[in-house]
């Protein structure tokens, strides 16, 4: 624990600096609360509204996690198909890239029309923006195998399916995890966008409702919780990588 605090002390230092400067600025300039609330008033709001905030947090967290797992499943399946068949690669890859150029903010309201209110459209929005880094990284990982290892597998009598299961899948794991780290960060954004276009709960909904009511503290409270979710899930993925892909760090060194 002490080690952990020492390791991350620069980050804590920056947080203290920003929070301190912010608090000072609000006090000295007498900025009205609805324009920019002080950190202390945001903290007070988090404390006094914690049960309400918790309820919205759980909703958003559920959307993020379900959407993320959908992206993970879709991403790995697509990447495998792309690596196993050149025809599939040529057929699908352009569309996968094109899917990322369509602004999600345009797609999200349409999803609402097509599949309705509720959890499903949010999960899809999350999955839509977070599957991309997963596919791209996993494809790169599967294609990065040393040609000499391919040769080795052939001289040992290995078939294509064995090369895939014994070589391509394990060697793509470090790349997959890099993709997952990017994916988890943007899936937080996905959930918020999904809630903005139409919802009745969740942190994104809370932000969009609180702003016109000049409850700016709540907007900031939601932002802070979202950043904690992002950092927390990122750390969780890093932890899983260490457990599941122990060779990854050695390889990079």
């Amino acid at each position, binding site marked *: 624990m002490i080690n952990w605090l020492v390791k991350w002390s620069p980050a804590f230092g920056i947080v203290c600096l920003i929070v301190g400067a912010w608090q000072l600025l609000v006090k000295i300039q007498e900025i009205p609360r609805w324009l920019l609330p002080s950190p202390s008033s945001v903290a007070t709001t988090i404390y006094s509204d914690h049960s309400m905030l918790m309820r919205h947090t759980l909703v958003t967290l559920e959307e993020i996690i379900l959407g993320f797992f959908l992206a993970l499943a879709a991403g790995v399946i697509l990447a495998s198909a792309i690596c196993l068949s050149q025809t599939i690669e040529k057929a699908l890859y352009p569309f996968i890239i094109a899917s990322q150029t369509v602004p999600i903010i345009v797609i999200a309201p349409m999803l609402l029309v097509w599949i309705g209110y509720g959890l499903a459209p949010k999960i899809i929005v999350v999955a839509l923006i977070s599957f991309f880094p997963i596919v791209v990284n996993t494809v790169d990982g599967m294609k990065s195998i040393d040609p*000499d*290892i391919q*040769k*080795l597998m052939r*001289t040992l009598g290995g078939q294509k399916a064995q090369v895939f299961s*014994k070589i391509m899948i394990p060697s793509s794991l470090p790349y997959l995890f890099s993709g997952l780290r990017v994916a988890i960060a943007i899936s937080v954004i996905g959930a918020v966008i999904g809630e903005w276009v139409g919802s009745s709960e969740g942190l994104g909904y809370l932000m969009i409702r609180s702003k016109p009511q000049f409850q700016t503290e709540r907007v900031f409270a939601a932002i802070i919780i979202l950043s904690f979710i992002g950092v927390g899930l990122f750390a969780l993925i890093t932890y899983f990588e260490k457990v599941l892909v*122990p*060779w990854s760090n050695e390889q990079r060194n």
Partner: protein
Amino acid sequence: MEKIVDNHINIAGLKKTIYQDGKPLKILDGVDLSIQKSEVISVLGPSGCGKSTLLNIIAGLDEPDEGDININGLDFGSRLGSVGYMQQKDLLLPWRSVKDNVILGLEIKGVSKRQSYEMVEPHFQSFGLSGFESNYPHTLSGGMKQRASFLRTVITEPDILLLDEPFSALDALNRSRLQIWLLDLLEGIQRTVLLVTHDVDEAIMLSDRIYVMTSRPGRINSVEEVPYPRPRNREIVNDSSFVGLKSKILSFLWDQD
């Protein structure tokens, strides 16, 4: 079960041309060589003489343009999986322990995991790997990695072993240690071996016959019989005939450029 054949491996008039940027590049221009059963032969030659191409063809990874190649009666398609090919790099899979790395070939052939472990278990001692069975490759020394890679190649009992500069990545001390180790090991397993190397000492010490190749396009320049009976020991390097043979081979190699 064993077929009695004089020439285990027979290669005659092997030619191969590859195309680089549309231009033909003659790699092999009529290579002949033969290996009897349980014989160790070396192929020596300057870089780029087509040794790797020759090995790829023997292993069944590549087909020659012209020439005959007979390996214990195996046709081209069935050579993959029957010819053991140890490449320069150890190519151990970083996500597998030593034990799981050496059974890779058995696993591919469909041998059960338990049976595979039983097959490799008795060899860890002689391969200097005992106590390291559960280690991951990155924790091993260069010599150990190479020995693990070698065990992975021989455990499937291939008809012939192709060794492509197996010690070139090691420092001089480890290299000579491993050469001596291989010398002892080959006495024990009686295997047909084709060793490709740059190292003249290594070639003389380990093999029964040495084929010296020309630079590209590769041809066999001379064939030298190595006169030492087996079992051999490391002392032969001090023999005057060893030095004579070495300088003869070196002069062939130096005349190339």
